[in-house]
């Protein structure tokens, strides 16, 4: 009976994964079609990839998108980590929770609201829409996730470790640089990583705050997709899919590495000399 149930589960999972991946594979499949639509596969060609690589407008947009992602994640990680450190040092629980709720507002707000309200903000402040406003927005919506990823790691940190460092003569800066930061480094990395994903993934907020002259990949895809099917976009999807897989494989191995170190620690307690 248990065996039977097992198979039901497997079958269901196959269905679920098929559901998740079919549209993506569908896109990639047609990127090799020499036709002009996603209805019939006309014959194998790489011409869409050629068009893609010679599309200098798209390449500029791609570089801009990557630049925005890297810069915004970097700044968001620094500000978010400092914020988490600040929240952690607060003594009053209530104040901590209050700041955390402010922190989470951007996490739960719908993208449309974030985009619209940032648009009002930039206009009110007289900031021109374009690279600057998009960068600022991406920094802004990435900060809270960094805080949310770093803070639990800080909480997990044994408070007596800081006491021990002081006891051994470390001043405040040395405590931060030699004890706290090395300890929370993995969570800072995942914060950076998450900020990167947020930035690369964002469409709605960018759509609101980008001016006429500047576009990220998402905005560009949107405007092209609204004009109908263009297999150059399919080629782009295929490349982005490969890129995502590479990223996720990297992430998986980093995860495995930290995981195995953690396991080692647990095992360590079990054996006595």
């Amino acid at each position, binding site marked *: 009976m248990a065996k039977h149930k097992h198979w039901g589960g497997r079958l269901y999972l196959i269905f679920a994964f098929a559901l998740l991946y079919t549209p993506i594979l569908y896109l990639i499949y047609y990127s090799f079609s020499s036709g002009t639509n996603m209805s019939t596969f006309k014959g194998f060609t790489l011409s869409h990839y050629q068009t893609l690589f010679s599309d200098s407008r798209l390449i500029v947009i791609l570089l801009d998108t990557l630049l925005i992602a890297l810069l915004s994640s970097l700044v968001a990680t620094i500000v978010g980590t400092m914020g988490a450190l600040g929240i952690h040092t607060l003594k009053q629980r209530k104040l901590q929770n209050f700041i955390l709720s402010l922190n989470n507002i951007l996490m739960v707000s719908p993208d449309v609201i974030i985009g619209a309200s940032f648009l009002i903000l930039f206009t009110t402040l007289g900031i021109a829409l374009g690279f600057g406003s998009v960068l600022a927005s991406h920094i802004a919506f990435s900060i809270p996730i960094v805080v949310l990823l770093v803070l639990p790691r800080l909480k997990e940190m*044994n408070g*007596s*470790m800081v*006491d*021990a*460092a*002081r*006891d*051994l*003569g*470390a*001043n405040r800066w*040395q405590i931060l640089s*030699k*004890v706290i930061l*090395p*300890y929370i*480094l993995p969570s800072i990395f995942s914060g950076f990583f998450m900020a990167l994903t947020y930035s690369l993934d964002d469409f709605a907020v960018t759509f609101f705050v980008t001016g006429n002259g500047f576009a990220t990949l998402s905005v560009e895809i949107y405007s092209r997709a609204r004009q109908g099917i263009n297999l150059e976009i399919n080629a782009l999807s295929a490349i982005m899919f490969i890129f995502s897989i590479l990223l996720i494989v990297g992430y998986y191995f980093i995860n495995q590495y930290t995981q195995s*170190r*953690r396991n*080692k*620690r647990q095992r*360590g*307690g079990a*054996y*006595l*000399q």
Partner: protein
Amino acid sequence: MARSETILALQHVYKYFDDFLALDDVSFTLDQGKFYSFLGPSGSGKTTILRIVSGLILADKGQVLFDGEDITNLPAEKRKVNTVFQNYALFPHLNVFDNVAFGLNLRKVPKSEIEDRVADILRVTRMSGFENRMISELSGGQQQRIAIARAIVNEPRLLLLDESLSALDQKLRQQMQYELRSLQQRLGITFLFVTHDQEEALAVSDEIIVMNDGKLQQSGSPVDIYDEPINHFVADFIGESNIVPGTMIQDFEVEFVGKRFECADAGMRPNEAVEVVLRPEDIEVTTQDQGKLVVQVDSQLFRGDHFEITSHDEDGNQWLIHTTNSVEDIEKVGLNFTPQALHVMRFGEEEEDFDARLSQYEEGDNTES
């Protein structure tokens, strides 16, 4: 041992946590080169004292003197005191060598000297060869040794140990008690050990300071504290005891359970209400007609090296007896004890008066204080 100089003194120290009075007028002095234990139940304030000495928290009132110097408001990183933390607080991102070298690196000690000193200390703590291990790869006992090594490599004058053995299992714990004791004697550093385990404190210390409710109760050698507890709390907390209410008829004569007994205590008012302590191992079981007291046996447990008998007298007082011979169940037996086995405690006596009274009336064994 020669009487040595004072290294640490606390004078009338108070500490509040919000409204809670954690330390209530605490004063004591520690001498160079001895092993001290602060003993008390959790919440008694012993860890608070430790943190005030280390500088991790500051006293609200009173003074902390180290080597005669006022360090009351000196932050932890500037004190010549190091701590072995309860859960070791080793740095998981550093290996054994870097953990031990942490304090020396901060003080910019030359590299070659650091290497020598770390190697020395690892030899002393029997952890040579573990330099490149990560903390996560060490067992509990090994982590314990590294925590000690990390503290003493800085050559503190005073080493604080915060419940440092409580995370270990029984067997390892006893082994570490021996090691701590011999380490302290070899290094000659003053140890201030905080524990709630009375057996541990009795085993390792030169002097024990018993605390309760933020106040010092009694200090003295383990033997003194065990044999002559000052009050009900100390008698009850240290070792096992039978404590019964009684009346001091006159010097060297006390009455309880309706009978008068010869005892070794004196210096109280005639007919003063007192409490009488009788340790279970000081009681001898005999026949009913030979005993000074007759009790009804309730139950008997075999404890390996002795039998533990619970019983009650005709007044309903419980008597706990440790004996090497078993008795038959549900039987009336006689209890015998010497006058020296009885210890009489006055209600609310201060330690100073207690010590004065004892040294006045007790012949033979002079108490060291």
